[in-house]
């Protein structure tokens, strides 16, 4: 589904990615780990067509990102710790707004369905600005899947969530996966990452340094590999749990 070769991206003279190769099969779930500044967000934003790569190729289903980004965007869901929800619209209006931009058929029914799934049906007429952090994150996820994307890109979905919201998010992610969608997620949280995905990828200083199927790894092994690859990286600010 995703085919990335030699992907680089620099911001002026600063390199964020220096030659990333990555393949993701349809229906597969991949977690990208790495310290801050490793290039995780840059990689995801390139896949989401929000950023252009400086060089290298990136294809989704054989279509080049830079030339057919329009088709690709229709099949892509992207969620980050930024909710992209408008505070002054109601919960329902937010979904309708994005649904219209994606030209979702049967929008009213789809909206109701989604709100039931994320448990916000009773708050449908509340302004989004009045929601709690956890509810907002759920609405944000509903926004990202309003058009039933084949490919989900999740950038630090757990950032800023309390334990309860994080668990609810996991239930939702499982539901998303149940529809045989491809998921690529970045996180700092090794344990959650390992539990939810088929393959682990570690990114450091803009390069893929480690790649293994989740089934072949224990949490202890993953921790050791992570430390081995990220220890000498001065950019690592957060210590993974």
């Amino acid at each position, binding site marked *: 589904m995703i085919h990335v070769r030699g992907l680089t991206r620099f911001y002026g003279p600063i390199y964020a990615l220096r030659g990333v190769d990555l393949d993701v099969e349809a229906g597969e779930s991949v977690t990208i780990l790495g310290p801050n500044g490793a290039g995780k967000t840059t990689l995801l934003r390139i896949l989401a067509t*929000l950023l252009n790569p400086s060089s290298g190729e990136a294809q989704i289903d054989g279509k080049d990102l830079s030339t057919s980004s*329009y088709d690709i*965007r229709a099949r892509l869901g992207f969620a980050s710790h*930024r*909710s992209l929800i*408008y505070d*002054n*619209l109601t919960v329902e209006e937010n979904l309708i707004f994005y649904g*219209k*931009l994606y030209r979702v058929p049967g929008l009213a029914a789809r909206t109701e369905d989604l709100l039931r799934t994320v448990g916000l049906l009773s708050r449908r007429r509340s302004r989004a600005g009045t929601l709690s952090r956890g509810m907002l994150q759920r609405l944000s996820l509903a926004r990202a899947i309003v058009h039933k994307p084949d490919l989900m890109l999740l950038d630090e979905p757990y950032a800023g969530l309390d334990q309860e919201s994080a668990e609810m998010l996991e239930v939702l992610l499982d539901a998303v996966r149940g529809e045989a969608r491809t998921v690529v997620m970045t996180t700092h949280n090794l344990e959650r990452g390992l539990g939810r995905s088929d393959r682990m990828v570690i990114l450091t200083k803009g390069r893929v340094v480690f790649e293994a199927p989740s089934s072949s790894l224990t949490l202890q092994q993953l921790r050791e590999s992570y430390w081995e690859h990220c220890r000498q990286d001065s950019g690592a600010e957060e210590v993974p749990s």
Partner: protein
Amino acid sequence: MNTIRSALTIVWKDMITEWRTKEMFSSMFVFILLVIVIFKFSFDLRISNAALLVPGILWAALTFAGTLQLGRAASLEVEDAHVDGLLLAPVPRSAIYVGKALGNLVFMSITELIMLPIFSALFNLNLFQPLILLAIFLGTVGFASVGTLLSTMAAYSRAREVMLPVLLFPIVLPIVIAAVKLTAGVIDGGTWQELAVWVRFLIAFDIIFLAISLMTFRFVVEG
């Protein structure tokens, strides 16, 4: 077709937001009254017929109020990365530009409709004349078209409140000159032959800057 529909969806969203908060119109109303008062007192003492100043004051007030509106509309989108949500959608970048520019045009026009009666009353002058309305409309189209582009850039920069007027004012100067000339010409009872040159000039400005902004907008929002 697709572009227009997406653009209208964005306008609809901005309308609802404004309808709920009423932030823009309430602040615009107070702001315009203050501008009029300031101008009235800073010139009235030295010039006996304040009506002579109306074209200038009108366009100074429109420029300031328009700049505030543009800045606010752009920062609503850029703050909290909302623009990412628009960029992720399968709509052309130009649809986002058209939506925001159309929204700015509508909001600025409503502000102007509130403003004109106040001006007419305070300066005892009928401003509801076809050519003045045309001048205001054409001027606003040009202002909104290049303003939407520049306010988006300003919203991404630091010190955005200062940045927007600095970027915008020298570029829209021709609009201000043409519109002031046109308004003054109408008040002085000029003929169509004398004034047509400014109407044509404004139309040319609008077309040129609409085209340039449409072409370059995607480079502003796309990383």
